[in-house]
Every structure is written in structure tokens, then in C-alpha cells.
């Protein structure tokens, strides 16, 4: 079917159409403003003349004889009684009128000037100057020419021309109005050579063509009329506008021919100008837009092209496609990261074209014979929806004709086979912000009505399952399938080109699970171990250890090592690392020093830093050194293992996890009170004027800074106290410390104290006159009056605190809304500016014209997704390879700080206000789904 593209459009030339050409290519002249007669048939020489193409099925075009969809439509034309100016060219017309003589039409430059200008222009062209440069240059030429008072050729004195927006020209001295006719006459006088000097190409566009004498009427297919249910016809906006033009044109002609007073003719002429102007662009400034009867402004030519919903952005740059599906997504941890679960209802509609050849004809006959809906007795089997004969005719396969169609299949037929397991499809979630938003998956046909995929694929799509929907596209050609499999498959995108680290990796429970499996190296008896490993396929179970009593057991590290490649080695510090002053390495009291040699986990806890997305060092190394196949296998296995471990252990969290002992609560309250006391002291000293002013700050600002600092301490202290009482056995703490979900800040806000609420980074100040709420005294600057919440989420906020918290929360929401649109526009601009750049085979980065942007990509030519933390090569790897295990000793590799990691600060150690907003953003969808508060 798809035999590749045989012809390529090499280039497209733009040009203006001359009135002669408009008449020549016109299928019919339009004279009546009426569209249909009483019987509902289009009137000849009317706006719906069947010579201009057909829109009703069954009818034939009178020009080409084709039916709907075959006939492309043909232009008609209207002969305008008097010429009118084309609004789109108004500025260019003005420039030309100004720069040429009003008498002889020559450009008002001396021969030498023309010569030098022309020379410069051709030089610019030779040097690869773009249209924009030439445009600016021509503009300058015209400006230079227009400053002359007297024509250097015929000596006529020039009169300045003023443009009365939108379309009227006046000569300044006597305010004489230049009619379009006069304008046209002047433009006609400009010789071709002078036009070239002005940057125009007289072969493609003579300036007098910008003053219209004939108006091209687009084919009816461009402006179809719709028949409403009531039987009424509703015409397209363009047709409405053309009706207006025709009516006025008719009246103008009659009046002119009847010798009506000049005034009336001129009025009608202006009206015609208005209608033609709005026909081109209904948003021309300076004139009221033409409106529909209902008051809605008409969508005329410019509006059809412009903007986000315009032809260019919505129909040409993005197109609707067949062979695609969209539905809600849901998780399935048992699928591979490379798979997507497709409901069979969708699979029955989506098809893959298969070309029939002598080798597959027998098999295909069998499939076709099943018809479009084979029985589901033995599970899903693909059927066939259409068969395309070698002459291009499509045959719909039904249960009735299936057998017969199957019989008739021959070589060179194409059958449209329904989706089946293993097909390559593209899977996408909007907004598609980066290339990982659209990846290739292998199909797994499933029951149910949702698309399903592995949870590890959530981060690249930024998907969750609170009602998100995703799109699926079935590839239709072998080339496309091959490309998708090699370049777009999920496993090829594990490493993000943004920062060179893994973007696909373990999340949430996977990390908690790995933590339970490895932290402090727990022992599992046979039952437990088999339970944990039961979901994994094709693994080799290591030899169990035996304790003193002879009972066999497996250690967590042993189990984890199963999924590691045999020769794997690495060393790093886990997420739970406390950043002690002196690292005790293997003897770490928190078991945070991870050391893997020969594929065996020797010590340490596996958590977010080991296998998590964006931070996982093990993952990162496997993906880089062992290839994407191995990385995909590792992710699949490690997540199953971790889920086995967490299910063996059991895990739950609740509000009870934030319980703190009474004395701790008291301690927090006391400290809060102390801080609040300090704040009121500060306020007092501010009011007495005894507050020390900070350099470069006003007294009031000084106060705010000091108060914020004190209250920040209050919250930090509350967090510290709460943290002390929530030990490492607390599930919520485990999640926070291992990097699975949440942060200690979240916990301290729940258990200790919510802290200061802020709007625009400042304490709350707005609301009533001189106070935030009527609960406070006017001018109260104290902690409570300005949005400090000393309660925790768990104890509950009091009414004022609740209100302040809502204020802070609202800011977060507004911020998100503003941010999405602003960053979206920024990205659109970035993409539009950078889309054409590519790395050419000589190592330079160039744009389409061939201008070198970079002589060596990124100064070293290295692909960011293959870098090691932004570095071209990993020195540790290098030394390990060349020097073997001596490397550590020789170079003291371990003594060096073990690498910083990707986005280590991402979402972690941000300022508290930011953190809050970040979290709000995460939870936004959830709130939405849950119906809000």
C-alpha cells in the first residue's frame, strides 16, 4: 500500500494574480447576488453556480464533470464596477506612491543611486540574504526615494501623501482624496525596472494588481452551505460577504451608468471598498467589523488563516489522523515498560495494513475468513475489517461475506488486519512537552475498556490515573514501524536528553519495596522468599544461607542481587544518607553506603538514589553500559521484586502516622509561643523606633525580614521536634527518607506546625483596611494577624488560619494557571526558533539555509543523553576499566565525594513556599477529580 513517496514537492512560489488571470481562470462570472432559486437549485452566475464545484452528493460539477470529493472546485470572478484597494497591500502601495513620481512614475532616485542600490541588493542575494533582510533594504530604498521634493527625471514637484486608515489616500496640500482609480493609474506608470529596485518582481506582481478590478470568488467547496434540520440553508460567512460585495457592486454600476450625482457614486464606491476590505480582513483597524445577523463578527479570509484555530496552525501544522484511539488510562504493574494494554474493543477498530504476497497468502486467507469479529472463545484473535484490491477498491469484510472475500484474495491485495499482540504503536499524552511524551509500545490485547501500562512509564508522560486519557496511534508502514521500534520504543528513552539521567525508573511503592528488601539486610525464610520472587520469570534463585539452627534463609541483599547484571559494580550513597561529617562507609549506622561488586549488593540500602526515576544510579549505569534491552529487563524485574517485597512486608500510612507524643506537642506549642512573643517584641521595637535598620532596607522591610526569619525558625523547630518523634519505623518517614513520596516538610506540617502563609513571598497584608481580617486590631503586625499558622494540619487550623491558608493556596492555583500558558508560549517560541537546527555530518550544527550555528555541537559533540552527569565521559568508569580494582587505591576514588546526582535538588530542598506550591500542583488533578473541597 504505502510504497514510499515517489515525488517530492521541491519548492513553492508565491505570486499575485493579475486581473486578467483572474478572469482567465474563472469558471464563471458572477453577477447575481442570489444563491438558490425557489426549488433549491443553485442559480447560474450566482454565488453557488455549479460551475464552481459541487458540495451536494450526487450532483456533478459543470466544469470538470466530477462528483463531490473528486472535484477540487473552481474559481469564479466578480467584475468590479470601480477599482478598489486591497487592504493587505495598503502599506506597500503607500510606499510605492511616495517613492515614485506622481507624474512620470519613475522612482525618485538618480541613476547612480539606483545602480548602487541594485548592486547592494544583488550582493545581498548572493551572500544568502533572506527575504526579511531584502524587505528591510527595499523599505529603506523607498524611504530614501520618498524624501525627494522634486522628481529627478521630469522635475515635477511632489505632493506628500497621507494615508487615512484603513484605505484612503489623500494628498496633503489640498486634502484631495486619491480615488483607487487614480492610485491605480499612478501605479501603472511605474516601470518594471524601477519595481525591481523596490524589491518587487514585476513578473509575479505588478503594483496595479494591488488595486482590484476583478475579484476572485473562491470555489463553493471552500465555502460550503449547510442545510439545517429544519430544511433552512445556512450560508458560509464568505458567501455572505460576497453577497454584500455583489449587491453594492450592482448598485454602483447602475448608478454610475445612469449618471447619478458624483456624491452618490462616491458613497457607493466607498461602501464597495468597505465590503471588499472586510472580505479580506474583518479585523482591519479603523473600521467596524462586518457582522452576522446575530451580531457575531464574520470570519473572513484573514480570520480563516490566522491564529491558533486558523488554517495554518490547526489544519496544516497539525492534522487529524485515522488509525488512532483515545481512552482513559490505568496502571498494570505486570506489563513490561515496553508494553501497552489495549482493550479488545479498540483493537477491533484499529488495523494494520498487510500486503499479500505468496508467502503469507495462506495465513491471511485464514485471518480474513474469520471476519471482522472472530469469536472470543480461545481469547482474542485478530480479524479483518477491510480488504483492498490491487486496483485500490476497498471491500468491507462482514461476517456474511468473509468466506467469499477470503477466497478471492490474491497477491498484491492489502488486508487491514486488526491489532494483535506485539504490534508497534505510538502512545502519547498531552501536553506533549518533550519527545518522551510520545513513545512506541508493544501491544497487549486485554479485557476492559482502558489503556494500561507499567507505572514506571508515568514520569515521562507525566501521567497519573485520576482520569487521565491518552492517545494511541497504529503505525501503517514498515518504515514507520522500524523507526518507531529503534528510536521511539520506551526502553530507548530511559535516559532523558534533558539531563542525561534516567527518566523512567522505580516510583513510589517500588522504592519503598526496595527499601524493605534491602534496608539492614533482612532475612527471609523459604516461604517469604518464594512469595517475593514468585512474580518474576526466568530467574536463577541463589543458594540460601543457613542460620545457626540450620534453617535456610535468604538475605534481602541476596534477593536484590538477582536482578543485577553479573559483573555490575558501583558505589554511591543512598537517599537515606544523613550526610554525616565523616563518612564511615561500609560501617554506616544508617546502612546508607551502597557498594555493589560483581553483581552482588555488599552493603547499603536501595532506595530512590539507586533505582528511582531521575536519581537512580544503578539504573543509570545499566542503561548506559548494558544497553536498553538490559535496562528494560532490569526495570521490569526490579519493580516486580520490590512489589513482592512490599507485599510481603505490608505497608500502609494514615493520619495516625503523624501522631506525636503530648510532650512533643507541648514543646512545639511552647516554642511557637516563644517565637510569637519574639515577633511582638520586634513589632514593639518597630513602633518605638528602636528597631535597628538593616542597610539598604526601610524600617518596615527590616521588620518583615526579621519576623519572617523568627517564624521560619518556629516552623523548622516544630519540624525538628516532630521529626525526632517520628522514627525511621514510621511509614510516612520511610517514604520521605527513601525518596518514595512526600518530604519531611510535609510531615512536619502535618504533625508540627503549618507555618507562615505567604502571598508573593510576603506575609499576608491585604484584605480589610489596615488589617487582614476583622478579627484583628487595625495595624496589628503580629504573627497571627499576618498569616502565621501555629497549628498543624492534624490538630486542625482555626478559622483565621484556615482563611489565610486558603489565601496562600489560591495563589498557588493562580500561579499554576498563569505558568502553564506562559511557559507554553515560551516553548512554542523556542521550538519555532530551533526546530530547523540539525547536526550535519561534518559535526557542525546548521539551520536550513546552511548557516553554522555551532562548529561543534555543545563544544564537544557529545549527546546529552549519553553524558555522565553532563560530563563527556565518566572518569571513574575509565579508571575502573583500565586500572581494575586498583583504581580505588591508586587514585583514592572512594575518597572523592561520590558524584553529585541529577536533579538532586529537584523537588527536594526548595524554599517552603515553593514546596507548597509544587505540591499543590501535583495534587491539583486529584482535587479536581474528587470534586474539590
Amino acid at each position, binding site marked *: 500500500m504505502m510504497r514510499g513517496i515517489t515525488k517530492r514537492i521541491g519548492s513553492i512560489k508565491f505570486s499575485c494574480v493579475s486581473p486578467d488571470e483572474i478572469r482567465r481562470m474563472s469558471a464563471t462570472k458572477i453577477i447575481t447576488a442570489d444563491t438558490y432559486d425557489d426549488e433549491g437549485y443553485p442559480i447560474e452566475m450566482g454565488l453557488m453556480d455549479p460551475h464552481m464545484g459541487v458540495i451536494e452528493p450526487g450532483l456533478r460539477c459543470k466544469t470538470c464533470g466530477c462528483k463531490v470529493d473528486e472535484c477540487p472546485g473552481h474559481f469564479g470572478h466578480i467584475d468590479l464596477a470601480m477599482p478598489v484597494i486591497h487592504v493587505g497591500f495598503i502599506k506597500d502601495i503607500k510606499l510605492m506612491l511616495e517613492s515614485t513620481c506622481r507624474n512620470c512614475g519613475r522612482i525618485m532616485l538618480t541613476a547612480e543611486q539606483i545602480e548602487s542600490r541594485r548592486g547592494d541588493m544583488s550582493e545581498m542575494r548572493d551572500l544568502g540574504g533572506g527575504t526579511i533582510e531584502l524587505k528591510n533594504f527595499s523599505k529603506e530604498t523607498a524611504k530614501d526615494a520618498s524624501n525627494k521634493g522634486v522628481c529627478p527625471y521630469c522635475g515635477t514637484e511632489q505632493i506628500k501623501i497621507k494615508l487615512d486608515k484603513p484605505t484612503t489616500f489623500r494628498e496633503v496640500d489640498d486634502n484631495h482624496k486619491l480615488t483607487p482609480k487614480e492610485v491605480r493609474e499612478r501605479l501603472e506608470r511605474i516601470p518594471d525596472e524601477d519595481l525591481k529596485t523596490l524589491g*518587487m518582481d514585476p513578473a*509575479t506582481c505588478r503594483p496595479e494588481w494591488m488595486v482590484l478590478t476583478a475579484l476572485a470568488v473562491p470555489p463553493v467547496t471552500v465555502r460550503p452551505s449547510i442545510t439545517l434540520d429544519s430544511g433552512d440553508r445556512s450560508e458560509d460567512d464568505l458567501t455572505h460577504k460576497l453577497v454584500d460585495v455583489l449587491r453594492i457592486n450592482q448598485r454602483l454600476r447602475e448608478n454610475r451608468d445612469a449618471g447619478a450625482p458624483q456624491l452618490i457614486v462616491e458613497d457607493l464606491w466607498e461602501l464597495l471598498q468597505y465590503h471588499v476590505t472586510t472580505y479580506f480582513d474583518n479585523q482591519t483597524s479603523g473600521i467596524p467589523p462586518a457582522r452576522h445577523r446575530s451580531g457575531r463578527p464574520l470570519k473572513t479570509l484573514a480570520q480563516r488563516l490566522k491564529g491558533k484555530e486558523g488554517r495554518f496552525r490547526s489544519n496544516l501544522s497539525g492534522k487529524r489522523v485515522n488509525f488512532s484511539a483515545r481512552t482513559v488510562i490505568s496502571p498494570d504493574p505486570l506489563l513490561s515498560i515496553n508494553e501497552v494494554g489495549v482493550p479488545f474493543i479498540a483493537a477491533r477498530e484499529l488495523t494494520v495494513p498487510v500486503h499479500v504476497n505468496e508467502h503469507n497468502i495462506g495465513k491471511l486467507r485464514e485471518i480474513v475468513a474469520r471476519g471482522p469479529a472472530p469469536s472470543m472463545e480461545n481469547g482474542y484473535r485478530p480479524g479483518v475489517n477491510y480488504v483492498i484490491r490491487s486496483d485500490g477498491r476497498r471491500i468491507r469484510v462482514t461476517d456474511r461475506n468473509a468466506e467469499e472475500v477470503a477466497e478471492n484474495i490474491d497477491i498484491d491485495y492489502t488486508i487491514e488486519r486488526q491489532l494483535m499482540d506485539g504490534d508497534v504503536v505510538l502512545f502519547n499524552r498531552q501536553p506533549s512537552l518533550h519527545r518522551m511524551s510520545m513513545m512506541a509500545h508493544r501491544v497487549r490485547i486485554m479485557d476492559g475498556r482502558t489503556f494500561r501500562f507499567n507505572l514506571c512509564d508515568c514520569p515521562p508522560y507525566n501521567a497519573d490515573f485520576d482520569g487521565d486519557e491518552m492517545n494511541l496511534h497504529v503505525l501503517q508502514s514498515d518504515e514507520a514501524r522500524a523507526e518507531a521500534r529503534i528510536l521511539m520504543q520506551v526502553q530507548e528513552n530511559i535516559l532523558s536528553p534533558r539531563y542525561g539521567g534516567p527518566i523512567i525508573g522505580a516510583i513510589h511503592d517500588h522504592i519503598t519495596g526496595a527499601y524493605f528488601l534491602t534496608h539492614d539486610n533482612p532475612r527471609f525464610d523459604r516461604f517469604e522468599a518464594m512469595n517475593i520472587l514468585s512474580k518474576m520469570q526466568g530467574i536463577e534463585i541463589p543458594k540460601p544461607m543457613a542460620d545457626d539452627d540450620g534453617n535456610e534463609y535468604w538475605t534481602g541483599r541476596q534477593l536484590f542481587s538477582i536482578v543485577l547484571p553479573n559483573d555490575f559494580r558501583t558505589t554511591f550513597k543512598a537517599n537515606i544518607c544523613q550526610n554525616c561529617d565523616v563518612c564511615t562507609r561500609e560501617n554506616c549506622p544508617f546502612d546508607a553506603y551502597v557498594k555493589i561488586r560483581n553483581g552482588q549488593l555488599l552493603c547499603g540500602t536501595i532506595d530512590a538514589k539507586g533505582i528511582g526515576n531521575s536519581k537512580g544510579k544503578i539504573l543509570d549505569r545499566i542503561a548506559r553500559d548494558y544497553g536498553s534491552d538490559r535496562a528494560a529487563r532490569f526495570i521490569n524485574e526490579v519493580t516486580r521484586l520490590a512489589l513482592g517485597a512490599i507485599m510481603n512486608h505490608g505497608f500502609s500510612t494514615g493520619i495516625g502516622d503523624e501522631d506525636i507524643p503530648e510532650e512533643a506537642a507541648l514543646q512545639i506549642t511552647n516554642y511557637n509561643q516563644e517565637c510569637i512573643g519574639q515577633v511582638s517584641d520586634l513589632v514593639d521595637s518597630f513602633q518605638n523606633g528602636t528597631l535597628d535598620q538593616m542597610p*539598604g532596607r526601610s524600617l518596615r522591610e527590616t521588620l518583615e525580614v526579621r519576623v519572617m526569619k523568627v517564624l521560619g525558625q518556629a516552623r523548622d523547630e516544630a519540624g525538628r521536634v516532630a521529626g525526632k518523634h517520628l522514627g525511621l519505623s514510621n511509614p510516612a518517614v520511610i517514604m520521605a527518607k527513601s525518596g518514595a513520596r512526600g518530604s519531611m516538610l510535609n510531615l512536619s506540617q502535618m504533625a508540627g506546625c503549618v507555618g507562615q502563609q505567604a502571598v508573593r513571598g510576603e506575609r499576608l497584608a491585604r484584605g480589610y483596611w489596615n488589617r487582614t481580617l476583622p478579627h484583628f486590631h487595625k495595624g496589628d503586625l503580629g504573627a497571627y494577624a499576618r498569616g502565621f499558622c501555629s497549628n498543624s494540619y492534624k490538630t486542625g487550623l482555626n478559622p483565621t488560619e484556615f482563611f489565610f491558608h486558603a489565601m496562600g493556596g489560591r495563589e498557588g492555583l493562580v500561579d499554576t494557571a498563569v505558568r502553564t500558558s506562559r511557559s507554553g508560549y515560551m516553548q512554542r517560541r523556542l521550538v519555532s526558533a530551533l526546530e530547523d537546527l540539525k547536526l550535519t555530518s561534518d559535526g557542525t550544527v546548521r539551520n536550513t539555509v546552511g548557516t553554522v550555528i555551532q562548529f561543534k555541537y555543545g563544544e564537544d559533540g557529545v549527546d546529552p543523553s549519553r553524558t555522565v552527569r553532563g560530563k563527556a565521559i565518566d572518569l571513574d568508569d575509565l579508571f575502573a576499566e583500565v586500572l581494575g580494582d586498583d583504581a580505588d587505591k591508586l587514585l583514592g576514588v572512594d575518597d572523592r565525594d561520590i558524584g553529585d546526582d541529577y536533579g538532586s535538588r529537584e523537588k527536594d530542598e526548595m524554599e517552603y513556599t515553593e514546596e507548597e506550591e509544587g505540591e499543590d500542583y501535583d495534587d491539583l488533578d486529584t482535587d479536581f477529580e474528587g470534586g474539590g473541597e
Partner: protein
Amino acid sequence: MAKKDTIKALVSRDISEEVAELLLTKYSTMSAISAASVEELVEVGLSEDEAEATLSKIGKRAPRAAKAEVPKTKKTVPESKQEPLEEVFSQRVFTQAENKLMEIAERLGISMPMKIISDIAHAIENCDLGDEVHEKLMVTANRMYTSHLMDKNESTGVMAAHSLGEPGTQMNMRTFHYAGVANINVTQGLPRLIEIVDARRIPSTPSMEIPLIGIAAEDESVARHVASEIEVTSLLDIASVETDITNMRLIITPNTRKIASRNLKMEDIVERLNKIKAVRGLVKLSGFQIVITSDEPSYKRLQIMYDAVKNSKIKGIDGVARAVLSKVGGSWKIITEGSNLKEVLKIEGVNANKVMTNSILEVADVLGIEAARNSIIHEAMGTLGEAGLDVDIRHIMLVADLMTNDGQVKAIGRHGVSGKKSSVLARAAFEITAAHLLHAAMVGEVDSLEGVTENIIVGQPVTLGTGAVNLIYTPKKGENE
């Protein structure tokens, strides 16, 4: 050409406004001034030095065409006789280990970025490794390096745009960052990133970081003195101004302590004020006060004088609203609100090599386009880093290189890079659709369909990545039968 324009022209030649106005009391055109002699100018009321400087500036000016080629920096060289600029160029000295590795690389025909070689050299500096090991290191490193190279025909641009745009959605709108302890407010987050790619002439919060050198770096009082040279001091900052209506005069009472802290003398203030047009020649020192007596008995005149004097700059650099000291790593540096790189570089005690400003276009004007490119990279990386987002520097380099590609800082967007694309369709699809199409028709433009957007519009494979290569396979006849 009105008087105003002449003044403007003179100012553009680096002549102060006061001098320019003084000149225009006698001369009306530029040529007249340049024709005059030093003595004649002195008569007008200029000092001899000023007159000389003025003449040299006007006379020096080349005809229009040459003007563009003379970099602005050269024109701003100190007022005195021009001395050739000291060439700042210091070649990096290679270490022994580096030299050795480079030798090996040359021998084996390995070409690797210098950065990798020196990283390796740095790591093995203190160990005793044989030649063989060195060689092996280089070979292995080269293998790793070549395997990390970017694939040919990769669409690097889109990758960079994605990598910069995607984290944008995770950034915050209103975050401000207080530079150091100095409490200077600097825009951060998404607005700052947008500002950088927009190539705004003036950032919303311009700021400079000025490390000091010599004793100024060590001694706080000297540092403070330098800061006072930089920070703008207006009259109201150091004195109170009263209007004495009965005697038709302004009385300025400077605050002695504030004057001392800014290293000013009463005479300086008088001199400064005397240069202001509205009160020229009327300012007198009387004891601890400065008195400006109006030359005509009119309230309006008095008010004009008051307004002119009130906010007049006594000292400092234009545009620098605040200069705050901060001590980093044992040496003092100044952090400012407002930016004026050109002037700050002239101040003594400033470590001119290390001065930073966040105004990218100012860097382009003063230090040139390469510096501007580095400034873009530095600012963008800083902004992203501040938000805790990790973006590979190569992406930002590409954006910076594209923005500075033709010697001027171009914005990303309609007025800059996107608006200058070679394809009509691509421009029309981006913004201002109708205008681009109409102009294309007028000049008979040809779209050669080389870019991405154009090819998508006509429905062809794009010219990047797998679409960039063409494979033509002609099967041998009879092979299939």
C-alpha cells in the same frame, strides 16, 4: 534640526549634556562647533580640558558608514589621550601530565576535547603510572568518548527547545531571590527565563556583582568608599532642601555625617549643582549651607529650580540605585541594584575582569557578542539551577549560540530568530500569518521547503533525523523472480 537634536547628537558623541547645551549657546550646528578652536570654546564657558576633549570627540567622528564598525567600547576609552588598550590574553599553561597525555593523543591520532584530557590528567597527577597505562587510558577514554557522540542528523534544536521548555512548566512564577546577604531582589524562575530568551534590553531587576581588588577587597572602609563611588547619591539623600519664598532662594542644608560617609565635600556639591542647567551659576556656598538664589523673582522659576535640584545626582553611576557590600570568601564585593557595566569598569578598586551583570544586552554592548553568549548561558543555567532543575548545558549553549549567531543578540520569537526564518510558510505558521503571505506574493518569494514546518504543511517527511537521509535501492533485475 532643532536644538534638541543637536544636543542629542552631541551626547551620542559622549559629550555631557551640560557641555552640549553650553556649546549651543553660541553655535547652532555640529560643523560650526567642530570648526571652532579651543580658545573659542573656552570663551563659551568651558574649561580648557573640556574644550579639547569636545573637539577631539567631534572631530574624531568618522563618516556614517564607518561608525557601525567602530565598537562602542573604543569610544568610551578614558577622557585623556587615548592609549592602546592593554591586551588581556593569558594562555593556559598545561601541566606536565596534560602535556604527556596530549603527546600520546597526537601520536595515536586521537582527538578528544581538551576538557577530558585535563580531567584525566588532573586525576592521575599524583600517581605513578607507566607509559603503557597512560596510553591505555587514552585509548579507552577515546572509545568511551566516541561512543557518546551525538548521532548525525539529530534534531539538536528540537531537543534543546524541549529540554528548556519542559522544565518551564515546573518553575514558579513569582520567586525572588535575594542575592547573598545583601538583600538585593533579583527576578528568578520562569519570568527570568522568559526574559533571557526574549533578549530584553533592560531586565526587570538589573543587578551587578562587582568583586573588588587590592586593598578594597580586604579593607571594609575602602570597599565602602568604592561602593559610594558606584551608588547614585541624589541631593535629597544627603541634604534637606528648603524653599525660602521671601528671599526667592533655595536653602540646602547638607547632613554632615551623611556627606562624610559618602566622601563628599561641600565644594563638590556646589560644583555639581552648578552644572545643572536650571541653576547654573547661581549656587553659592554660605557656611554650612548652600544657597541658590533665583535670578528672576518668579515663583514658577523657584519651583523649576527646586525640581531640578531636588533629585539631581551628586555622585555615583547612572542606573545604579543601590550598592551593597558583601563579604564572600574573605574578600569584599559589591552587589548592586541597577546595572551600568561600562561605567563600573572604570572605577578604581573594581576587579574589572570579574565584574558580572545580569543585563545581557549591556554585556553585548560593552564586551562583545561572545561575552553576551556566555552571559546568556550563565544566566540561564543560574536561573534553572536556582529552581532546582537540571538541564544539560549543551542545550542552553545551542540556544545562546542561535541568539547571538549573527553578531547581535536576537530574541527567540517573532521579532528575532523566528521572524527571520527563510521559509514563508514557517513564518506564516508561527505568527502574523497574513502579512507574511501577502509580502511573499508581492515579491514573488520561493519557499524551498527545507525546514520542518513547511514540510509538515505540504505533507512530506521532514529533513531531520531519519528524514534527512535518502536511500535509493535499485533491485537487480530478475533477483526476485
